[in-house]
């Protein structure tokens, strides 16, 4: 049953630029970026049982490093991209060492605090980050000499990166390591007794999540050609978390569905309703009340109930 709609979704996303205008194509690009971000966060939240409220750290870190390297240090986009992803991954390794001293609520608070530190830096370290004015005047890269300046070409670029991210993250959670990770989520004590180094498993996952969060950040800064401290804010982290939970944490498709919904409400509904945040709140409340596990598990349960004859 799952297999039927996979090609439909693929065809839909692939053909979107042929039928839609620039507004919707750009909306699609933003959805891809949000989806990669939510997918990476879901590794921690859904598969590791580690709820992070500071995942925007990695999005912002990658974006700022890339912006700084290209505008201030005179690096090309390619080198800057590699350095910013490397830097973000190292940053994730460092943050992970601090945050994974705790789990549960403690972990959530430390990740939040760490991201607030970065947010504060971006705001106050004006000589480097240009503070509240943000860093503008960025140009998009030319991967393999192909321009991605138009809405459509950027959309294709984002779609390819998102597809690679989805495949890599799917492989990750389906791997032996993924099985180990889910085990530490469900019974960490038992896993330790079985010979698993629970801390290192969580740390590697944290780094991997940071890596893909950084990829999302790079796309984000390419898309906007601008970066502002608000991308490091708690709102930015919370939107990602909202996408994961609304779509269904611990599922592969859930974070995509959730972040597509959040991006849609944020960009589309906000042009019709001033208080779109309130609308987002209502939609989220509705999801949590009707489908407490998120949209994807909720729909699956509905489908299962539909199939089974009632007793």
């Amino acid at each position, binding site marked *: 049953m799952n297999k039927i709609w996979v090609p439909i979704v693929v065809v839909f996303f692939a053909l979107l630029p042929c039928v839609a205008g620039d507004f919707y194509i750009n909306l699609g690009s933003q959805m891809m970026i949000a989806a990669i971000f939510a997918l990476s966060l879901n590794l921690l939240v859904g598969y590791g049982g580690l709820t992070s409220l500071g995942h925007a750290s990695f999005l912002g870190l990658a974006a700022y490093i890339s912006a700084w390297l290209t505008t201030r240090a005179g690096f090309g986009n390619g080198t800057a991209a590699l350095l910013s992803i490397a830097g973000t991954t190292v940053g994730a390794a460092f943050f992970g060492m601090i945050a994974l001293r705790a789990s549960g609520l403690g972990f959530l608070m430390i990740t939040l605090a760490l991201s607030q530190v970065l947010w504060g830096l971006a705001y106050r370290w004006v000589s480097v980050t240009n503070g509240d004015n943000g860093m503008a005047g960025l140009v998009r890269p030319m991967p393999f000499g192909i321009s991605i300046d138009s809405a459509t070409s950027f959309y294709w670029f984002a779609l390819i990166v998102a597809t690679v991210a989805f495949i890599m993250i799917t492989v990750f959670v389906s*791997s*032996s390591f993924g*099985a*180990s990770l889910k085990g530490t989520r469900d019974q960490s004590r038992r896993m*330790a*007794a*079985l*010979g698993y180094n629970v801390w290192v498993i969580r740390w590697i996952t944290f780094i991997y999540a940071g890596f893909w969060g950084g990829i999302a950040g790079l796309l984000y800064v390419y898309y906007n050609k601008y970066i502002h401290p608000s991308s490091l804010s708690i709102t930015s982290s919370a939107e990602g978390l909202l996408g994961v939970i609304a779509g269904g944490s611990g599922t592969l498709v859930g974070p995509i569905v959730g972040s597509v919904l959040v991006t849609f409400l944020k960009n589309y509904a906000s042009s019709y309703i001033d208080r779109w945040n309130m609308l987002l709140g209502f939609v989220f409340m509705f999801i949590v009340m009707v489908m407490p596990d998120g949209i994807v598990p909720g729909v699956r349960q509905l489908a299962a109930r539909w199939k089974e004859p009632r007793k």
Partner: protein
Amino acid sequence: MTAQNDNYALEIVRLNKSFVGLPVTQDVSMTIRPGERRLLLGPNGAGKTTLFNQITGEILPNSGQIKLFGQDVTKLKPHQRAHLGLSRTYQIITLFPKDTLQHNVALGLLGLMPARWNIFRPMSQHIIVEARRVLGLVGLEQLADCPISEIAYGEKRRVEIAMALAQKPKVLLLDEPLAGLSTAERNTIKTLIADIPRETSLVMIEHDMDTALDLAETITLLHYGKVIIDGTRDAVIADERAREVYLGR
């Protein structure tokens, strides 16, 4: 003497542990030979499970030493001890409820394999075949694809043992493997435990005397965290102090 020490599978030397001033393990010393079947007895609160938790490393002792095959493991983490051949089961069932029986046992196998770090490949067919074989040993092969949450309590107890057996441990700690079981189920588990190969040393906590005494060769009796008697099964049963602890004066 030193040479002989190295022959012990498990050696505990003057172990002490207190929880906020309450001593739960007091000067406990114990030696288990390879292949030995040891029963750990004692009333509730005697510190039996706490002793297990110190052997596996989930709790660190305040003082004393724990050795596995002559190697000092007192400071090692639980997962490091698992790799030295130590395995355990839990009094309160600690399985992965959403996963299948096969997956549960496979996790036991994977835990000791380098493949557990592989982020690109799923568990190999070899692990799955082996997991099903081990489930066959405890008579649950036909339920291999069922989630844990759907099987009966007695069957979960058997999965607990299967997970430990899958690791082919050199020292296996069984924490009340018969707790909460019916007579028929108890006999099944008893046979299972009796069939554990002699390469594995067993230390078992169990209150069901009929079954436990049949399995045990040696007995250690704990009371208020202290070793009261330590000896062969018959010697301990005949001892006056054992009766006092269990029946009162």
